[in-house]
């Protein structure tokens, strides 16, 4: 059979860009299909606007947000400056089970959520890849850290990750650019925590913002604006536009289609191969298709599962690659909430300049060598940072007149925030299905989400709250607020799973190469492939798994197996 392309990549976000880069650099002719509009690097229309340039001063139109962005507006990075980088909820509905509260944050555009992501880039460890085997939840990962370590090296070196080496088994060091600095409060907190609890290490966030430019790739160092989600024409943070897309385009082997939503992946039951994809043009409503030797799904965890479910056929009536029946199940998101927020007295003579685009992390310290978690067997970690209050503190304070104005002229007290991220167990009942009664604007069945945290996540978040409180209090902080209850699913924007990896085709969708069991030329390399969730950000691991899968696909193609 003659194919139009060697590979089709569905999606252009963090992993789609990586798949396109690696596959084109491997010599393949690649078609990348994006459902959203094209955005050129540098064409970020609100990047340099000041609040006074904006109709709603950067806070946005409440009526518009209530009607069109009721979910997306809950994202911390969603503002009047960034709203065009998020989906319109009214035009892109999803369904939830009656008891499910799930905030699904999405960005349908060239670059996907790589434009709006939090840029935290952490390796996972064998505590994470061994977690399911250790406590029996979910299915064992078919890979371990050693399988992925060289691919982490590869990805970090290319995207640029700044961070400090700490020698921690639970958060392995990587190929780091120089770290951004801790501020005075964070340095003091790090020292006080470590003196009392040596296993608790506060370190600067490992972030995909460059501290050293990469001029050969047209990328400049971070300018310390911390307005990344507007888009960065300096190319200082990793996005598809700044990094992988130019690399893939440079090969001359990449074709990009935008405004086309893939409706179905075609499957040939005779050859047991996928043959290509079909799409709907969302602008002119025309339909099209392309064939390829292999297909990579990188539509985002839930949308890749959605596409597999929508690709049911006579041969695979329950969804493509769903011979096991587990497709859509075991979805996860980190249990996420404000662990503690404290005023930190004693630093009144210190201040800082510039907007650092990362905070700190206190990696997991529970359930490592021994199971010492209270009511849970996995990990939790903290992210956050210290900041000096600005003018908006005046909204909570009494005062009018000259003295009030004079007080707000200066920075306010230092505050320290610790946000809890607890590992989410993979559960069969947390799952994605097709809503058979409702369709979206493209005529596709709505994706239905059933999700709830269990007692383990609640226990972990409660313990995290206690730990955050004791650490900040020990360091002299006055805790103002903290939560022992996770926010709704989706809050962490780390939704994953649904097409999990595993050894056994009867209980998993993908093998250890992100390759569908029984369909050798179908790969799913976004968050859908995850078998467990760890308690640190997953995007770096998705990228490493994508690069690894692309290399495997090349080997298989050369061997004639694909």
């Amino acid at each position, binding site marked *: 059979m003659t194919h139009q392309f060697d590979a089709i990549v569905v999606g252009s976000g963090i992993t789609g860009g990586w798949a396109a880069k690696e596959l084109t650099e491997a010599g393949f002719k690649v078609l990348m299909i994006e459902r959203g509009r094209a955005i050129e690097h540098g064409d970020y229309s609100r990047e*340099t606007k*000041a*609040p*006074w340039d904006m109709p*709603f*001063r950067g*806070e946005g*139109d*409440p*009526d518009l947000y*209530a009607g069109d962005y009721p979910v997306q507006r809950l994202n*911390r990075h969603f503002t009047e400056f960034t709203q065009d980088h998020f989906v319109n909820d009214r035009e892109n509905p999803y369904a939830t089970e009656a008891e499910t509260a799930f905030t699904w944050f999405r960005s349908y555009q060239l670059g996907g959520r790589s434009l709006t992501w939090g840029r935290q880039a952490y390796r996972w460890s064998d505590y994470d890849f061994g977690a399911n085997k250790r406590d029996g939840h979910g299915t064992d990962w078919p890979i371990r850290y050693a399988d992925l370590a060289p691919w982490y090296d590869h990805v970090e070196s290319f995207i640029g990750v700044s961070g400090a080496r700490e020698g921690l088994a639970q958060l392995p060091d990587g190929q780091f650019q120089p770290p*951004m*600095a*801790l*501020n*005075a409060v964070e*340095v003091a907190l790090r020292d006080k925590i470590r003196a009392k609890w040596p296993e608790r290490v506060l370190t600067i966030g490992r972030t995909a913002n460059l501290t050293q430019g990469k001029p050969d790739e047209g990328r400049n160092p971070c*300018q*310390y*604006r*911390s*307005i990344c989600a507007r888009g960065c024409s300096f190319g200082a943070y990793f996005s598809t536009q700044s990094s992988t897309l130019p690399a893939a385009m440079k090969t001359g082997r990449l074709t990009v289609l935008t405004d086309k939503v893939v409706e179905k992946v075609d499957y040939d039951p005779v050859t047991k191969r996928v043959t290509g994809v079909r799409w709907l043009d969302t602008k002119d409503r025309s339909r099209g298709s392309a064939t390829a030797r292999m297909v990579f799904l990188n539509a985002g965890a839930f949308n890749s599962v959605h596409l597999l479910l929508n690709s049911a056929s006579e041969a695979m009536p329950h969804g493509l690659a769903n011979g096991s029946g587990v497709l859509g199940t075991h979805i996860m998101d980190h249990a996420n909430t404000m662990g503690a*927020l404290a005023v930190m007295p004693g630093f*009144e*003579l*210190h*201040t*800082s*300049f*510039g*907007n*650092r685009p990362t905070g700190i992390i206190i990696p997991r310290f529970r359930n490592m060598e021994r199971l010492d978690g209270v009511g849970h067997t996995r990990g939790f970690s903290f992210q956050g*940072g210290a*900041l*000096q*209050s*600005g*003018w*908006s*503190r*005046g*909204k*909570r*304070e*009494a*005062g*009018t*007149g*000259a003295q*009030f*104005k*004079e007080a*707000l*002229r*200066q*920075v*306010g007290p230092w*505050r320290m*925030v610790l946000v809890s991220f607890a590992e989410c167990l993979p559960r069969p009942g947390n799952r994605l299905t097709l809503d058979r009664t409702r369709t979206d604007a493209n005529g596709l069945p709505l994706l239905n989400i059933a999700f709830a945290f269990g007692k383990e996540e609640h226990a972990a978040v409660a313990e995290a709250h206690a730990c955050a409180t004791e650490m900040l209090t020990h360091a002299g902080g006055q805790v103002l607020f903290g939560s022992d209850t996770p926010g709704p699913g989706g809050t962490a924007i780390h939704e994953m799973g649904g097409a999990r990896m595993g050894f056994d085709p009867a209980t998993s969708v993908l093998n250890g190469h992100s390759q569908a069991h029984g369909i050798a030329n179908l790969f799913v390399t976004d968050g859908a492939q995850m078998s467990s969730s760890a308690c640190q950000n997953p995007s770096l691991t998705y990228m490493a798994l994508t690069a690894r899968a692309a290399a495997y696909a090349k080997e298989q193609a050369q061997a004639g197996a694909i």
Partner: protein
Amino acid sequence: MADHDPSLWKRRDVLGGAALFALAVGLPVAAIRLTDLSPDDRPTPRLRRMLREVSQLVIPRSDTPGAGDAGVGDFLIFALAHGMEGTGEPFSHPGTDLPLRANGSLRHTHWLETELDRRGNGDWLALSPTRRAEMLAALDHQAFPDGPPPAVLSPWRAIKGLILTGYYTSQIGGAQELRYALIPGRYDADLPFSSHDRAWSSDWTAVDFG
């Protein structure tokens, strides 16, 4: 309000002064187009004067323009008409007769006008500047009592919040009263603090977390 009101000349002086001041700093008095609002939300001239005055009392003129000078009175009208700062949500305030919209939200502008006039013997604007400031300070103090926030929050809290938003996100408040750096270009993690240093309105995280 009739033209023979004895306080009118004072108000004209205030408004004239504001216009001259705005001319000096190169900004229009009102950058907001109130004509774009629905008829229900368009202010009377009196209400417009009152909101300008209230804004100026919260953030007065010093070596930089005040909030009234910066057009925050009109921003308030715009922001409240659009429900910013949560003011578009249904309002429940037991035991009072309040001006509500069809959707159940409070007409904060009308509430404030009524409340200030009630405190000001029927015409708050007719009071002396000192008395106006004292009454607004009293209203503010009652809305922000010492200790935890009261169970029923005064509508003034949202109005004051919007006055601060309007001022510190204006060019005057954000870049003259405070400092604004679109491109800091570097991060200095630990600098000695000087009480002469002005805060950065462009520290977005600080604004987010207060």
